[in-house]
């Protein structure tokens, strides 16, 4: 099943991620990110806050969707719709910035569009039309035959790779340096995703970062931006 996980985390997957900078475009404009060191700091901070939250939600959505490796008894479809809707509200509550809510739902929709064709399954119909991205990712993982921990890993990994690529483009950084930055964060990605998988009580991480929220709100008002968020 490793191939399915690699596919989900691959920036080649045409789900629209390349048009989002994960806050990096505004962080650069604000002077928060300007070189490899500040980029690493920014990415670590993103990983441990919104990245961890996304990982927990993705794992929960994966378990809710069911599937061979999710360790869950298949739920009746009606219950699944309700459970996914509840998770979508949990995601909303963990995303105070309207701009970030919109960005997450936009990316969720993009992933559903490609996911439902790459891994056809009736579960896709149980999601709202514009689900938060971690929910779409969790469902994609489930229908691709992955486990909740895999969904969390993909979410945690994507929380740093998208912004890293955006920084590379915007600052014309050496791509090898950016690869070093993300490689150095590898252990942290594993730790965050392992810790984020909800336990039997359904406890979900709730890390947020006011800096990311503020950057996103300022960014959304700009007309001279390259990235959607």
């Amino acid at each position: 099943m490793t191939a399915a996980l690699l596919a989900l985390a691959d920036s080649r997957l045409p789900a629209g991620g390349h048009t989002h900078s994960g806050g990096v475009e505004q962080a650069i404009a604000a002077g928060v990110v300007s070189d490899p060191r500040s980029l690493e700091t920014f990415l670590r901070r993103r990983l441990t806050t919104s990245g961890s939250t996304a990982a927990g939600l993705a794992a929960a959505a994966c378990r809710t969707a069911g599937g061979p490796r999710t360790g869950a008894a298949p739920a009746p479809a009606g219950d699944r719709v309700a459970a996914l809707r509840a998770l979508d509200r949990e995601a909303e509550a963990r995303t105070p910035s309207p701009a970030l809510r919109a960005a997450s739902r936009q990316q969720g929709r993009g992933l559903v569009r490609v996911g439902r064709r790459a891994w056809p399954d009736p579960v896709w119909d149980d999601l709202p039309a514009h689900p938060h991205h971690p929910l779409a990712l969790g469902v994609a993982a489930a229908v691709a035959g992955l486990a909740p921990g895999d969904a969390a890993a993909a979410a945690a990994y994507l929380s740093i790779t998208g912004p890293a690529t955006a920084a590379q483009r915007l600052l014309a950084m050496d791509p090898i340096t950016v690869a070093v930055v993300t490689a150095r964060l590898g252990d942290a990605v594993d730790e965050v995703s392992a810790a984020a998988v909800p336990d039997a009580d359904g406890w979900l991480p709730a890390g947020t970062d006011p800096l990311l929220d503020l950057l996103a709100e300022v960014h959304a008002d700009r007309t001279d931006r390259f990235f959607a968020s």
Partner: protein
Amino acid sequence: MPPDHVLDDYVDPYDDPAARGHRHGPLRVGLGGPVGSGKTALAAALCRTLGQEYDLAVVTNDIYTTEDADFLRRNAVLPDDRIEAVQTGCCPHTAIRDDITANLDAVELLEGRHPGLELVLVESGGDNLTASFSYGLVDVQIFVVDVAGGDKVPRKGGPGVTASDLLVVNKTDLAPLVGADLDVMRRDSAAVRAGKPTFLISLREDPAATEVADWVRAQVRARVAAHA
């Protein structure tokens, strides 16, 4: 027969109901080409000429600003709610070819807002000669180059020049000023385009883009006929 040749219960994974639906939606026309060649000028011309005939809308993919969308609004060729601008994340080419998600979102938004839509023009951000649209996004594509780039451009080729459904060589009015030989451009285009059409035009002299508008009409008719 070997078992792997038995296709009785084969489900075609490439047969997408959504794509089938798309074929019944508006005709999607891509307008690509290098920076400044006249893509927005052509979009504006087509809106003026075809706007009364068809229910139409435009998606713009400015690299940086909403310049193109603003131009279309300023020139009052289209109301605001028929123009959507897409952010391309520093990578205009990716947004029209490799990961078309943002553009599909914009097209679907316009289709949802205007259910009778018959024609959607998608203008790419100015790119280079290798830029081309994915046919997952558009039904046909027009590649716009200009005379000011020199008469070598068709000869240099690239997917836009060779494979586009229509090649437009714009700004023929500038040919004498830049010493470009239009016959050379016509001949070189014909040589690499395997019978597909090339129009040499000047939007300055013909702001209605008569020839291109006729070609677009023919595409709309062909599509309607194909799905009748």
